[in-house]
């Protein structure tokens, strides 16, 4: 049986508060000029005594090399897609082109202030203006707002627009229900609820897609809209999308597109053409910007012409000579964050689209789908794995398999296989999602990995499943080769042991003494 050779760095790195020594300095800010000090005199009297800190904040006291070493050591204990396959389904962990980082780190981006006079930032406005138009073209929508900071933030804005639309029609009081399939991302129902809607969950049909009859039964005069991703979270394209759109529109609702899976259909099909009214785009997924260990991302939304008046201000406009911000849109919904959006992320997306062009974007989609179906076919042949929901249909950029047969025969669960994959030098897929699949393994290889990487992953899966039958204990106790062993997640959330900060930790230790 092939044994994994991967070894992650294992620094026994102290908590930063345990490093350094009193008096050490990592950065010294400039002193005020003597003339300034002379003109102002002692500053003690400038602040009210009772609002001056009595005790300095308990921050580390470290030299510069110590700070660098600490964070570099930490970084070595963090897996990332630049070292290997990171097939986290729904998250599109593709390669992040370095040229995109380079252009986003230019001084004109970094040092620009969002309230600068428009005449001083024409180039930045031009980039944002062009990008929003490209995103509208890619999604088949009429107008795009770059404001939201993440996909879920875009969903929230989309839901606020749905609210504003029904309010404008005088129907907000009745239209309180947002329909969400049971296979949807958790953010969909959470965003709808935040925007004041009651969530109505509809079951998926036997093919894993929206059950048209269930949908018809769910819509009514109370329907505000339907939130859907296409391809859906099983990686299956909702072929009846036009019929779905018709049912929702006939009921007076709006159709919302969760853009998490847009990568699969770039240049092949557009949400706007499918009948979606509002579309969010996960820039950090589809347009190759780094995920930042959890963010920043960017979640622009596109809307059809009828909803354009509801997009928040300011709008970035161009009058043929100059770019400017238009604040005069009386129907605009309120902003959901300050300024214009996550510009440093958006500039990367601008470069990404330039690097790929129309053919390249289509190639992204096709190869992501090829890679996904290739890997699915390889995994589907392994004992212990089954493919739920119409295994004969092609998947798109991601697929979901069930490890239920393995669990039944060996007691080894999806979680354990995921942990054992880490030992083989792969990030685990998304597990236990979507909730409609038992022991779910949601795999999204992306277009950024070659056939050898996919073969390597399939081989690791084969070895793990074989190990699970021969030596289940070994898999159940995985991982072994990572910076730490299996982490006790229950302890982290238990009221008695919970330590969410250094302060809380010290307090708990103090109580024990």
């Amino acid at each position, binding site marked *: 049986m092939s044994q994994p050779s991967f070894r992650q760095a294992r620094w026994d790195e102290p908590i930063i508060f345990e490093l350094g020594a009193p008096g050490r300095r990592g950065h010294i800010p400039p002193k005020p000029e003597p003339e300034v000090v002379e003109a102002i005199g002692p500053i003690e009297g400038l602040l*009210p005594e009772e609002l001056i800190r009595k005790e300095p904040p308990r921050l580390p006291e470290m030299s510069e090399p110590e700070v660098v070493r600490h964070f570099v050591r930490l970084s070595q204990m963090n897996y990332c897609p630049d070292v290997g396959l990171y097939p986290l389904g729904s998250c599109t962990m593709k390669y992040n082109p370095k040229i995109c980082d380079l252009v986003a780190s230019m001084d004109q981006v970094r040092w620009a202030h969002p309230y600068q006079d428009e005449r001083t930032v024409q180039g930045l406005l031009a980039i944002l203006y062009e990008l929003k138009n490209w995103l509208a073209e890619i999604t088949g929508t009429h107008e795009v707002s770059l404001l939201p900071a993440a996909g879920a933030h875009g969903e929230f804005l989309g839901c606020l627009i749905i609210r504003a639309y029904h309010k404008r029609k005088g129907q907000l009081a009745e239209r309180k229900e947002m329909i969400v399939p049971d296979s949807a991302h958790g953010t969909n129902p959470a965003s709808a609820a935040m925007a004041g809607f009651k969530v109505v969950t509809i079951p998926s049909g036997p093919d894993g897609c929206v059950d048209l009859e269930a949908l018809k039964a769910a819509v009514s005069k109370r329907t505000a809209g339907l939130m859907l991703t296409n391809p859906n979270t099983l990686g299956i394209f909702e072929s009846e999308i036009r019929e779905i759109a018709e049912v929702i529109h006939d009921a007076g609702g709006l159709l919302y597109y969760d853009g998490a899976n847009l990568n699969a259909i770039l240049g092949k099909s557009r949400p706007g053409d499918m009948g979606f009214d509002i579309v969010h785009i996960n820039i950090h997924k589809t347009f190759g910007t780094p995920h930042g260990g959890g963010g920043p991302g960017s979640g622009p939304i596109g809307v059809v012409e009828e909803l354009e008046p509801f997009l928040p201000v300011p709008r970035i406009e161009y009058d043929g000579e100059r770019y400017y911000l238009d604040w005069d849109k009386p129907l605009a919904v309120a902003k*959901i964050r300050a300024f214009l959006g996550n510009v440093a992320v958006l500039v990367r997306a601008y470069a990404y689209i*330039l690097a790929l062009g129309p053919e390249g974007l289509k190639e992204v989609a096709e190869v992501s789908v090829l890679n996904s179906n290739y890997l699915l076919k390889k995994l589907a042949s392994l004992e212990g794995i089954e493919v739920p929901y119409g295994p004969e249909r092609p998947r798109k950029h991601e697929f979901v398999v069930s490890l239920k047969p393995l669990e039944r025969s060996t007691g080894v669960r999806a979680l354990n296989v995921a942990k054992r994959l880490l030992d083989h030098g792969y990030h685990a897929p998304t597990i236990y999602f979507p909730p409609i699949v038992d022991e779910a393994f949601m795999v999204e290889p992306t277009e950024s990995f070659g056939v050898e990487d996919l073969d390597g992953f399939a081989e690791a899966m084969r070895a793990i499943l074989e190990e699970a039958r021969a030596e289940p204990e070994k898999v159940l106790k995985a991982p072994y080769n990572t910076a730490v062993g299996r982490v006790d997640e229950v302890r982290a959330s238990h009221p008695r042991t919970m330590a969410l900060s250094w302060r809380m930790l010290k307090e708990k230790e103090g109580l024990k003494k």
Partner: protein
Amino acid sequence: MAPAHPYIPNSAEGSKRKLVEFLGISDPDELYSDIPEGVRLDRPLEVPGPLPEQEILRHVRGKLSDVKTALDMPVFLGAGCWPHYVPAVVDFILSRTEFYTSYTPYQPEVSQGMLQALWEYQSMICELTGMDVANCSMYDWASALGEAARMAARITGRKRILVPRIIHPERLEVLKAYTEPAAMTVEQVPYEPETGQMDLEALKDKMGPDVAAVYVENPSYLGFIETQVKAIGEVAHDQGALFVVGVDPISLGILEAPGNYGADIVVGEGQPLGNHMNFGGPLLGILACRAERRFIWQMPGRIIGLTVDSKGRKAFCMALQAREQHIRREKASSNICTNEALCAVAAAAYLALLGPRGLRELCETIIYRSHYAMKRLNELPGVKAPLFKAPHFKEFVVNYDGTGLTAKEVHEGLLEAGIHGGKLLTGEFPELGQSALYCVTELHMREDIDRLVEALGALLGGDRP
């Protein structure tokens, strides 16, 4: 056949053929056969490219060539996005690919680096603010305030939020966007015209047993320090409301921690802690609170916890996930998923570099420079700086009413002289007359301030645009 694309290994003909043959198809497009005719795109997308890498660089450079920033001219803008020096170490740490290309640490065993860095960020925010728990980031200050208000409503079961009249208009707008769908109301408390301080009597009048939270900012949007924070917190607590305080974290190197004057929840903008302005984003929303159970369980966003691994070694993982959208769906405490984690790592590195001493010295330099600017501007005929009789930190209102010039005219004149003045306040606070909000930090050298004063002096001397 088109040449392989550099980002797509399997776009090479031979590799692709392997995949296609294994799948028993003749063309990748067959995998799209389930997309009905009417929704297939039958033309190329109308976007530019592909460009070779060097042309991308040239193209973007060309676009940005006319952009002028704080590196090209003194810029005195702040208002929620502030110019501060970012130490080279911070950018170096953020450029570690292990941090910046990874994602949410769903698999803690291979993600200890990010988890520990975020836990350290949370811990340092707690030290700064005097709170016990911080989440590992919100999108920005404004959305953090919106979430804090909803959190206060869930904790208290009440729907009214009282905020100062002097608040960033964008922040107020975002607060309303977040709270309106929850049937909450936001009311503004007037201020003392002379000092900008919250009108305590007006606050008491508006106060009632239905108020979920009273919110103040310190320093305020217009730069002055709200000196009555303790009393305001007491008014809130007397009626069972929460006291929420918004901060610029840099100021906490010298200003009292809100936890020491009664704050229950602290929000703020973490961008000044090692993050570039980036034309306003990404930013870093701070949200911290007390360690009470009723608080912690209502917090939005990711929270990292310290725990142990199977061998009893120190380890970190995401804690309290049962609050979050991927578990609780429509009953979650928030919908936030992707956040601003990398900006939080920047903040952790920044605070570790500065330490308590460096942060204090930084605050002192800022106070010296901002007060020097106020003093010199105030010496100009007809110019009033600061407008409010109150202590200030790094921002202040400059009023031009006595000069005969409008704020817009001053702005134009300064720009012509190669200086970007403060943010005009005429639209948002008409009662302040012809005024602008200026920001001075450690980046503004004495000569920058002197240039501003001279240019403004020249304008007043009749040298009008």
